């Protein structure tokens, strides 16, 4: 079970929403790096690690999103300005950045409008 909150700015203050729980389909802890790679004029290769950080891939499927409250929350979550999650009922929490933008990335199972599935990618704000 994962709990999500989203933040929206009112003036200069980021206000966090109430929590919403989801029985996630998958929640994978991954690692992301950013590097400068290339070769010098003499042909030597170089590979500089700029930073690395944690990335989480979350998928919530139609067995959760059929509920109107959970689907509405997901839409508000997607267009928010801040995001955080917890997997221990907010004893600890992780403030993250949301990688996706553009149209909300719903997949429709069996092409059915009521069977939505969404995959979101959270990226750690501070690098390791």
């Amino acid at each position: 079970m994962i709990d999500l909150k989203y933040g929206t700015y009112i003036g200069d203050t980021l206000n966090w929403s109430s929590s919403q729980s989801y029985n996630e389909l998958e929640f994978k802890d991954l690692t992301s790096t950013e590097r400068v790679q290339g070769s010098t004029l003499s042909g030597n290769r170089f590979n500089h690690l700029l930073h690395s950080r944690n990335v989480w891939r979350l998928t919530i499927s139609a067995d959760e999103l059929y509920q109107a409250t959970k689907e509405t929350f997901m839409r508000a979550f997607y267009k928010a300005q801040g995001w955080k999650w917890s997997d221990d009922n907010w004893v600890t929490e992780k403030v993250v950045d949301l990688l996706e933008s553009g149209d909300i990335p719903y997949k429709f199972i069996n092409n059915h409008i009521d069977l939505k599935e969404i995959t979101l990618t959270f990226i750690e704000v501070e690098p390791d």
Partner: protein
Amino acid sequence: MATYYFYDDVTKWKIYPINGVDLTFTTSDNIHRLRYLEENSYIKFTPILSEINDDNGCPRVVATEIDAQFILLQNNYSDFDALITDIINYQLNWVIIFCAALNSYVVMTISININDAVCKTSHTIEFKGDYPLLTISLKGIMKNDKMILMSNIFGEEP
């Protein structure tokens, strides 16, 4: 349509034979109790799986497809004309289905609130001798918590 079931193990049933149905229509006061359906009446459940696998590498059952057919001879229902009137004028909003395997004491009741499902119903009338034979078909997707109950019937973890 053939029916497939094991003698007394409902978890092995793929298609459930029906021996009775209650139908309730919106804005109609009638509850139609159809207790003597023709033998090809059935309900079938097919699990709908997630597109992505879960953390254990398996897809999850996220909804259930329903396919049902109720066949009724006019002789077997005294309010046949009222039923036809309701079918034509109103929307079906509750279906309670009674299943029982032949030669078995296993009885199962399946209740479908159409608000919890996305259903399309259709009907045809043919004649068996001099008597009308009504076939109601119901196809749809159950998307509420009841699908967990249904997936238990399949013998799968919800």
